């Protein structure tokens, strides 16, 4: 079984964001970076499938600047066999179609049996790249999976729906799946596996060496939301803050007597 997982490096969302000088994206300085949470589930599911199928290969791919290599190393330490880095220092300016287009250029000749992506990236949240990739490769796709099982080329998944209900869906491989939170419990890479990952192959391909895909969307502005301002902000874990909160609750709600 030949498996591909697409992963993206995203900023830690607890970071304090600043708008970049361009006005269209966040400043990359002073941010901590991590593997997109949804993609952690995708990597874990792929590693499990790879372990269960025994033979074959699990490739992890990321399109992004130099530092995206860290996310690839993490996935390798979780159990992927080799990495592909589509190097693009301008990836933050690319729209979903351009990103999916570049990944498709790489993936087309590789004939993957299964592709996993996250449902969405935490910074963009467009929830498009996976499905666009499937479309470009003419593969069936099922989104938002919270359970996956495979038997002899037939995959059964559960798709999560609003309210927490699930749809049970069957599809034949090859196919692409987009992974939702809670699909599995992603493993922590162990130290020996982190060491092993350093020796695994990562092939770097400059996106400028791939056929170019035209943009369909332009970002005009990135900004902080207008604060609704109605709320009171209390700072600090002190006795006075707790007293003030209790006083407010007594005044504004009927639940504290």
């Amino acid at each position, binding site marked *: 079984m030949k498996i591909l997982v697409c992963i993206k490096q995203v900023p830690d969302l607890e970071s*304090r964001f600043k708008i970049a000088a361009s006005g269209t994206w966040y400043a990359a300085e002073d941010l901590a970076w991590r593997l997109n949470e949804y993609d952690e589930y995708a990597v874990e599911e792929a590693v499990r499938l790879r372990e269960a199928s025994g033979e074959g290969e699990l490739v992890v791919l990321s399109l992004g600047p130099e530092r995206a290599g860290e996310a690839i190393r993490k996935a390798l330490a979780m159990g992927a066999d080799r990495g592909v880095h589509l190097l693009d220092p301008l990836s933050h300016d690319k*729209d979903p179609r351009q990103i999916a287009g570049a990944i498709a250029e790489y993936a087309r000749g590789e004939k993957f049996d299964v592709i996993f992506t996250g449902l969405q990236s935490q910074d963009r949240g467009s*929830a498009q790249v996976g499905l666009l990739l499937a479309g470009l490769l003419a593969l069936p796709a099922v989104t938002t999976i919270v359970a996956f099982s495979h038997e002899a080329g037939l995959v059964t998944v*559960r798709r999560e729906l609003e309210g927490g*209900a699930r749809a*049970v869906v069957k*599809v034949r491989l090859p196919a692409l799946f987009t992974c939702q939170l809670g699909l599995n419990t992603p493993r922590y890479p162990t130290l020996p596996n982190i060491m092993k990952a350093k020796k695994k192959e990562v092939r770097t391909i400059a996106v400028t060496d791939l056929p170019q895909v035209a943009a369909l969307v332009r970002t005009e502005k990135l900004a902080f939301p207008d604060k609704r301002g109605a709320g009171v902000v209390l700072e600090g*874990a002190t006795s006075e803050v707790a007293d003030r909160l209790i006083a407010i*609750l007594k005044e504004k709600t009927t639940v504290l007597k």
Partner: protein
Amino acid sequence: MKVLLVGEYRDGKILPSTYETVAFARKLGAAAALFLVADPSDLPRFAGKLYLAAAQQCGEYNPEGHLALLLQAVQAEEPDFIVFLHSAYGWDLAPRLALALDLPQISEVVALAEGAFVVPACNGKLRRTLRPLGQRAVLTLQSGAFNADGEPAGTPQVAPLTWAGSAVVELVGYEAASRGAVDLSRAEIIVSAGRGIGKPENLALIEGLATVLGGEVGASRPVVDAGWAPHERQVGSTGQTVAPKLYIACGISGAVQHLAGMKKSGFVVAINTDGDAPIGEVADVLVVADLKQFVPLLTGKLGGV
């Protein structure tokens, strides 16, 4: 301007989200037609043209089939925008349509900005304004962002659509959400734990506060996904919808899917180390503090009152 709205139908029912697309069309000031794969004997309330395919024949989840049907409707209608909800149905189908038509897609629209569209970024901490290049685009709307004003009304003029392919993905059936004994929707006070509790042992702090207040414990999704709390405690779009008199969110960032479950609460207190966390937008009081210190302090004081 013309829009084609994509309604939703599941498990034998037209979903109310369908009417959010209608509200959006009104806000845009566009002439609207509706597309729906549903039971033809149960029409939506809509004054306009309805492209309708039978769910009995085409399946409720059949992406290839629904895409083929939508392409027929788009060809007949020639809309400027094709509008979905950003939902399990919408985000699954919209990119397939965008690719088939070679159109841009803008996901999770929350507001209009003079021909451009505002969408959230970084889990709601930031907003992006996006403009499609070209005249036409596929849009998905954040659920709850365009609320239907008043009861939907009208009788549609039906344009029937048919499909005769074989499904590539097969919908076998549905499984209901696990519902335990707890009914959070009736609770007057809910104290909820988010990922900010850090480790499962700290859930005791949240339980302690809930106990002195006589309330129930709720949780955000990561707490449930990690197995620290059962699913019946999850508040949000894929958990329970609650409306207590008092909701205390401890270590919860305020992602839109969480807010969807608790924004009808009477009074919201958030305890968060990050003063910029989006939960601040809905909180009546935001306490910027470490919950590990603040929650026990508050519990102690309330226990003494």
